[in-house]
């Protein structure tokens, strides 16, 4: 085949490698991608329009559902703007709780990503490990807020749930366990030669291109762009805690892995400080139903990068305009650049490396009422069934369980 012969291939909008609909038009020369176009919008739900027809409190729940993973990010980013317009003084304790949940959300999101990245390069053991460990933080979030995702924690002027002393202990215990596991993953990422070789040099994005194309979050930071809204434009109580902005100058998928692993460690550091320094006091102030006319721009460092919300109020109980710029929109343009001159087979991991946002809310639910059919299992029964099923086939997890006993990992 002559070298100049180019073929166009459409991938998506439905594609097994990607869990959210987007379409790529790739121009291939052999196995090498020479050009890549992205078509988005398949999941446009009209949330901004819907927000104009609902009250601020209703919008809070609507906007929390922009994303199934960083739901607290969108909810907080939106409420910050509304509170700025209404000139509400959010109590310190409420801000601590918001920031705490924000960091727990980052932990679950980054652990999720680590698993997805492992899966995309055929390292499914990493997926199994990280997603098991992620359950520790998911259980914690469920205990603190009542939900694994879409926490419904924020309200206009504060938060809806307080954190008890016992819960603080639970948080610290879970963070210890997660930190130990994350150290292990950092060990894997820095010593496991197959993983290093598979991710190095893949999805290259130079610092100049990252800045020019507007890369945000870990994608930008892994190309040496030291930008983080928590540091540059502090909100919540980030100005009161000590942490580092993790960067890497590797400019590839491997760098993005190191940055996220490093950010997990920084999150644990932040969570401990928040738990220890959390002041006593009220968790909410009374908020008006009608928000005075005004406008505000809110920035928030979501797990995937900078989230931007603009809110314009017109003096009624409904906003005049709500504009949302999720981090993936800023990064997806970077993707087509990163795909160029790479291998077609690298496409899934390159796309996954910006951590595009997709919903992951499925879980088994324990049926608590009396209407359960005889075939319904509770969560505990289902877990025991799984353990027995494997034991009968010669796989015993008791040894692992012993090793993790007392560390909050089941």
């Amino acid at each position, binding site marked *: 085949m002559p070298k100049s012969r180019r073929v166009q291939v459409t991938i998506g909008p439905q594609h097994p490698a990607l869990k959210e609909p987007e379409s790529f038009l790739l121009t291939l020369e052999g196995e090498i991608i020479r050009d890549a176009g992205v078509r*988005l919008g398949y999941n446009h739900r009209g949330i901004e329009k819907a927000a104009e027809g609902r009250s601020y409190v209703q919008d809070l729940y609507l906007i929390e559902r922009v994303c199934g993973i960083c739901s607290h990010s969108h909810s907080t980013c939106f409420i910050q703007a509304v509170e700025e317009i209404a000139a509400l003084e959010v109590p310190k304790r409420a801000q601590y709780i918001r920031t705490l949940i924000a960091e727990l959300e980052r932990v679950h999101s980054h652990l999720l990503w680590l698993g997805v990245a492992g899966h995309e390069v055929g390292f499914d053991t990493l997926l199994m490990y990280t997603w098991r460990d992620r359950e520790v933080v998911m259980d914690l979030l469920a205990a603190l807020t009542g939900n694994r995702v879409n926490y419904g924690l924020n309200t206009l002027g504060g938060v809806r749930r307080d954190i008890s002393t016992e819960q603080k202990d639970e948080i610290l215990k879970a963070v210890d366990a997660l930190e130990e596991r994350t150290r292990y993953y950092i060990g894997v990422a820095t010593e496991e030669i197959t993983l290093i070789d598979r991710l190095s040099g893949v999805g290259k994005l130079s610092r100049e291109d990252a800045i*020019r194309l507007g890369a945000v979050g870990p994608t930008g930071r892994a190309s040496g762009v030291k930008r983080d809204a928590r540091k540059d434009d502090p909100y919540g109580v980030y100005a009161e805690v000590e942490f580092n902005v993790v960067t890497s100058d590797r400019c590839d998928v491997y760098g993005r892995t190191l940055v996220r692993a490093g950010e997990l460690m920084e999150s644990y550091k932040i969570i401990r400080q928040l738990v220890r320094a959390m002041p006593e006091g009220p968790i909410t102030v009374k908020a008006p139903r009608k928000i005075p006319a005004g406008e505000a721009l809110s920035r928030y460092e979501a797990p995937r990068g900078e989230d931007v919300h603009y809110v314009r109020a017109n003096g009624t109980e409904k906003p005049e*305009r709500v504009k949302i710029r999720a981090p993936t929109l800023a990064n997806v343009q970077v993707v087509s650049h990163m795909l160029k001159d790479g291998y077609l087979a690298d496409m899934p991991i390159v796309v996954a490396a910006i951590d595009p946002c997709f919903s992951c809310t499925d879980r088994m639910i324990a049926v608590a009422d009396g209407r359960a059919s005889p075939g319904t299992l509770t969560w505990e029964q289902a877990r025991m069934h799984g353990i027995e099923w494997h034991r009968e086939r010669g796989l015993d997890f008791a040894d692992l369980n012993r090793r993790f006993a007392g560390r909050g990992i089941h």
Partner: protein
Amino acid sequence: MSPEQQIELNLAKTFPYLQGKIRIQRARRVFVDVEAEHFGEVFDYLVQRAGFTILCTITGLDLGATLGALYHLAQESGIVLTVAIAVPKEAPVIRTVTSTFPAADAYEREMVDLLGMQVEGLAPGNRYPLPDNWPAGQYPLRKDWKPADEPARPADTKESVNA
């Protein structure tokens, strides 16, 4: 003098017509109203000489007789300056900023699709975010736009399910 006040002073000195159009809302938040005809020079000054090298996003607005475009520009220092322009609804034409910020492509296409903005100089490409078969002239984020065939939600859904 705070950095925000310094920015206000420099802007008003460089562009005398901006006097009284600059508003410091709080630390790190500045809003500037600019006539559409002056937008290019103010924008270039901010990006090239005042260190506003980050484009957070562009917000499109339906302001009644006009369409608004808010360019949220940020410095590395964390200061965000919002440049607001308004163009008449009958001829809502703005210039693209994609040569300075390639990422503006999606933000500008969004204004084209949802508000009917016309962006001069925007390279041809896929539309975003509406589907390819979306009817022409329908701009969902305009205030007078209502979904044409939104199925009415039956008031007695719950009862009918239980029946």
